[in-house]
């Protein structure tokens, strides 16, 4: 297991460098620079600023300068938030997104899997239709609408939860977690249902029932375990996406997470921050996929990590 994990990490290093190079090129091709403003800065002053951030050097030199820093673990300074390094910004914001994301992921698995199971097991009944109604709603309703509806009912009408902010109390977490978690709940429930419907019809399930096993052990031991494979496959990217935050949810609930930097870094052309958040996302995605591969082996002995 450990050599497998190490091997996967080792293979990922060139992937990170290729990604960094592609991101560097794309962001420098994009028109507009970090210091383009409506109030034009005199060219001499712009030259001073560009010199400070080494943007006056040829592009290849800037690329090697950045890569050298990256190898040493230095993600550079932000061009927008003066005096703050990209590492500081990520250190401040990533834990918030991770916390919110983990709650949402927990909610997704906690609700998504049982909903999928119920829908499949009670296939064709009202329970199936209701579960799938929730699932389809979760997938189709845009998150800003879900968030707005939650705020309207639970903050304005009922007055139960705050309409936003991230003050530490659990009452601040309920609405954003629900808004962020609804979509993954829906995705997992639908996947779980489809996969379970396939497994339920499998010969070994029929055999298990024929052996006289009661329904609960059949579902738990034979059906559930094998139905989980597609859910685990999707969990990697889902988890990486969810813990790096959602721009809409963080924006609507005024949560100081990392997601907004994915958008604002680009609109501000804050090159080092664009690179920083992209690379962090890539690293998390790679780690989540390694975790998925390890989980495969745990769930299904036919799959070997080596």
């Amino acid at each position, binding site marked *: 297991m450990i050599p497998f994990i190490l091997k996967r990490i080792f293979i990922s290093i060139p992937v990170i460098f290729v990604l960094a190079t592609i991101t560097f090129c794309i962001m420098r091709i*994009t*028109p*507009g*620079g970090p*210091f*383009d*403003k*409506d*109030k*034009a*800065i*005199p*060219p*001499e*002053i712009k030259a*001073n*600023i560009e*010199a*400070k951030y080494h943007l006056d050097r040829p592009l290849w030199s800037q690329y090697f300068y950045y890569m050298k820093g990256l190898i040493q673990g230095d993600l550079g300074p932000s061009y*927008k*938030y*003066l*005096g*703050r390094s990209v590492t*500081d*910004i990520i250190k*401040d*914001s990533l834990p918030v997104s991770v916390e919110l994301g983990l709650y949402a992921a927990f909610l997704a698995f906690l609700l998504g899997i049982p909903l999928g199971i119920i829908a499949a097991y009670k296939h064709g009944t009202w329970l199936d239709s209701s579960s799938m109604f929730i699932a389809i709603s979760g997938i189709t309703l845009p998150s800003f609408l879900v968030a707005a509806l939650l*705020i309207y009912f639970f*903050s*304005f009408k*009922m*007055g*139960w*939860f*705050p*309409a*936003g*902010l*991230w003050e530490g109390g659990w*009452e601040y977490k309920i609405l954003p977690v629900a808004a962020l978690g609804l979509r993954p709940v829906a995705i997992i429930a639908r996947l779980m249902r489809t996969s379970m419907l396939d497994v339920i019809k499998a010969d070994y399930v029929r055999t298990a029932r024929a052996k006289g096993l009661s329904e609960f052990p059949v579902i738990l031991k034979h059906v559930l375990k094998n139905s989980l494979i597609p859910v685990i496959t999707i969990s990697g990217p889902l988890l990486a996406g969810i813990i790096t935050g959602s721009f809409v949810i963080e*924006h*609507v*609930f*005024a949560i*100081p997470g990392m997601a*907004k930097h994915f958008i604002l870094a680009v*609109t*501000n*052309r804050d090159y080092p921050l664009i690179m920083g958040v992209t690379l962090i996302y890539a690293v998390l995605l790679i780690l989540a996929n390694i975790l998925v591969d390890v989980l495969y082996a745990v769930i299904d002995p036919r799959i070997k990590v080596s």
Partner: protein
Amino acid sequence: MKLKKIFTLLLSVLCLFSLTFCSKKAKLSNDTLYFNLETEPPTLDPSKAADTTSSLVIENTMDGLTDYDFSTPDLKIIPKVAKSWKITHSGSVYTFYLRDDVYWTDGKKVTAPDFEYSWKRIIDPKTASEYAYFLFDVKNAQAFNEGKIKNIADVGIKALDDFTFQVTLTKPVAYFLHISTFPDLSPLRKDIIEKYGDAWTEPEHIITNGPFKLTHWKHDYQLILERNDNYYGAKAKLKKIICFMIVEASTALSLYQTKKLDIIRQVPPLDIPHLKNTPEYRSGNYLSTYYIGLNTKKEALSNAYVRRAFSAAINRTEITDMLQKGDIPTSTLIPQGMLGHNPSIGIPFNPTQAKEWMKKAGYGEGKKTFPPITLLFNTSETHKTIAESLQSQWKRNLGIEVRLDNQEWKVYTNSLQSSHKEPLKTSFDIFRLGWNADYPDPDNFMSLFTSYSDNNHTQWGSKTFDKIVEKAKLMGNNPQKRVELYNQAQKMLLEEEAVIIPLYIYAHQSMWRNEVKGAKLNPLDRWSLDEFWLER
């Protein structure tokens, strides 16, 4: 039966929630104000600040030489750390006499060398300050910033003794005293900046001299200002101000409506119609003008008659009525409330006259057909609404086809800047921009359209216009003459040449509770939080 049990359980949980939360009302004191700052201040280093959020925090934590008296209609400049000043050498030398009872938050006295350090730091190329150009009227400041001279002692900024600070200008510009009010020119502590580097603005290191001090800064979320009890002036009435950084205006409004915020500085445009008649809705006008500019190098717009016709074909009131934000329609550039504002200047709405001008330019029935042109704007609902209105008005009143094109903000500003290099190759003929006053002096608006201004994207330039603006800049001792010169310049810019078409003077919208006292909107959008108090 089972279902019944589940529903009973759910109902009990819901009741428990409502009992827990409905009864839980936060106790709000009169000492603490909850304020929406809107965004993370990009910096709290005065020398590097170039945005309104940073300036708002800096002006509440730092005191400079002078300030504005917002209760006076002409925004009179009043003493702050400088108790008085003397202007000599025909307006070229400013000598500021400082109070000797102003202290930093660590107990040291604020002295003239602190100002000297700060003013020299902003023009130092190593600081890479965006606003260094505000001091370019100071002797040798521009040359030092551009690296043409190396000795900082040659720059006209000097502390004559601990409480006398002198600035020597290259020319006696009329607006220099306004420059001395800038938060960017607040005094700075050399020892603190050298000791902590960029981290000097963090709450654990920062040393300030204003009515509030920074005690907490959770980046991208919250910043806390507490009253500076050793402040030399009238002490702030509030003990604490909790500033949140809520970017989304509708979220801020929700939090305001659920009593988590006392002041919001922005109202979502869609909510304005139903909030504007409520007592807590506040609206006022800025010293800022929204205008559209015409690329005079493009053949279609190279004729002044065509440009005048474009201006005369716009009913500005139709636009402001559509926006419903309280903006004031204007045909002049210098906004209301500023010296030189003259509402009679500019081309008013007159479709008949517009058609006449088009005919004079050789377009219309039986003559040439005007080619389709492109109006470019940066992506935003408001700008889109305005662009569509202009498109329809020009079609209606002149029969002209205008294509609309939008670009993301940075791409847009880049397009405008690139148009200086290759004006004929640009994809657009008309653009939009707005200008907020840096200081309440007409030069701040008029110098935008000099032939050498980087902000003049019209590609139009006139030596005569440049001369008038340059002359008016130096007439500080003769306001009457200045007004005459600006009337002349505005007539040239807006009526004869019509290279820009002003549309309206911006209005800003805020909301604050009736319990918040002492708060007033002002045309520069400054927030002197030390004047606020609460009566909850």
